[in-house]
């Protein structure tokens, strides 16, 4: 067995994951904080205002990374859902359901900040255009996954039902992504494509730093939430008592 496969197998063990994630967490939170400070400084202090939108374009540094994370987390949830459904990997199920509230928060931030950006730019807080509506549907999908999981008493059954809903909802991701090109929307088309960027480096660099910072927030928060669910589900098991009463917390 090579090192990678050994790592994957070890990750499936709750006590090993709990200890490993505990050692990893200070580093992931640390990287997040450093990137956050750098991104905010460059975005709010150093970057120039947009030539057309003025200062309101600074909302971009939280709106765009949040919208990006809202879709990325949902895609990851679907992948973890498939792993849980097909191979019955408990850790994948726990990580899937632990991701849902984080994804919902990022979606809510994307919607709220987009709305606040829309007012000075479009003259309105909300329009029922394809991008905004499909992003709102994504928030409802996240809430649906969380609600469906909470409706079951047995965590494994709950995770399977939630994974199925997460899988069905994946159809919404290409709709969100391509909505601005498929339909005539008030929302602008993407500025970052595989062919290049329409954003000046002075604004692009802080934006990319914030995207990476949000990723580290997700990793850190996911680890914390997964650890919580592990001790919640295994609270009567020996390893939890051993860890909680021992020195290796």
């Amino acid at each position, binding site marked *: 067995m090579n090192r990678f496969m050994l790592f994957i197998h070890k990750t499936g063990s709750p006590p090993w994951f709990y200890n490993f994630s505990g050692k990893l967490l200070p580093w992931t939170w640390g990287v997040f904080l450093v990137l956050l400070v750098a991104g905010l400084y460059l975005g709010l202090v150093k970057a120039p205002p947009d030539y057309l939108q*003025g*200062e*309101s374009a*600074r*909302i971009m540094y*939280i*709106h765009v990374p*949040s919208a990006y994370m809202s879709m990325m987390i949902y895609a990851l949830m679907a992948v973890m859902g498939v792993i849980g459904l097909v191979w019955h990997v408990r850790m994948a199920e726990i990580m899937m359901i632990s991701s849902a*509230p*984080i994804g919902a*928060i990022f979606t*809510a*931030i994307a919607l*709220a*900040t987009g709305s*606040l*950006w829309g*007012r*000075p730019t479009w003259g309105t807080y909300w329009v029922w255009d394809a991008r905004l509506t499909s992003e709102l549907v994504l928030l409802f999908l996240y809430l649906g996954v969380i609600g469906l999981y909470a409706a079951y008493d047995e965590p494994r059954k709950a995770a399977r039902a939630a994974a199925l809903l997460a899988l069905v909802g994946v159809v919404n991701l290409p709709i969100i992504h391509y909505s601005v090109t498929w339909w005539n929307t008030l929302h602008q088309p993407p500025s970052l494509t595989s062919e290049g960027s329409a954003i000046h480096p002075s604004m692009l660099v802080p934006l990319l730093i914030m995207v990476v910072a949000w990723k580290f*927030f997700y990793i*850190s*928060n996911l680890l*914390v*939430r997964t*650890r*919580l669910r592990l*001790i*919640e589900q295994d*609270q009567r098991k020996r390893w*939890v*008592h051993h860890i*909680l*009463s021992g020195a290796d917390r």
Partner: protein
Amino acid sequence: MSHTPFIVGSYLIALVLLGWCALAPVLQSNKLKRFILSRQLFTEEKDASDS
């Protein structure tokens, strides 16, 4: 139109939601750990008094 309230509002919303998202599981985890440890202590004391 001044853009400042919209920018400040956006960053405040993000700060509050992300702060709550980060803190809620930590507080929940601490509460659960305390509960498990107190239950463990109760069980040990009960076992000791029974024997």
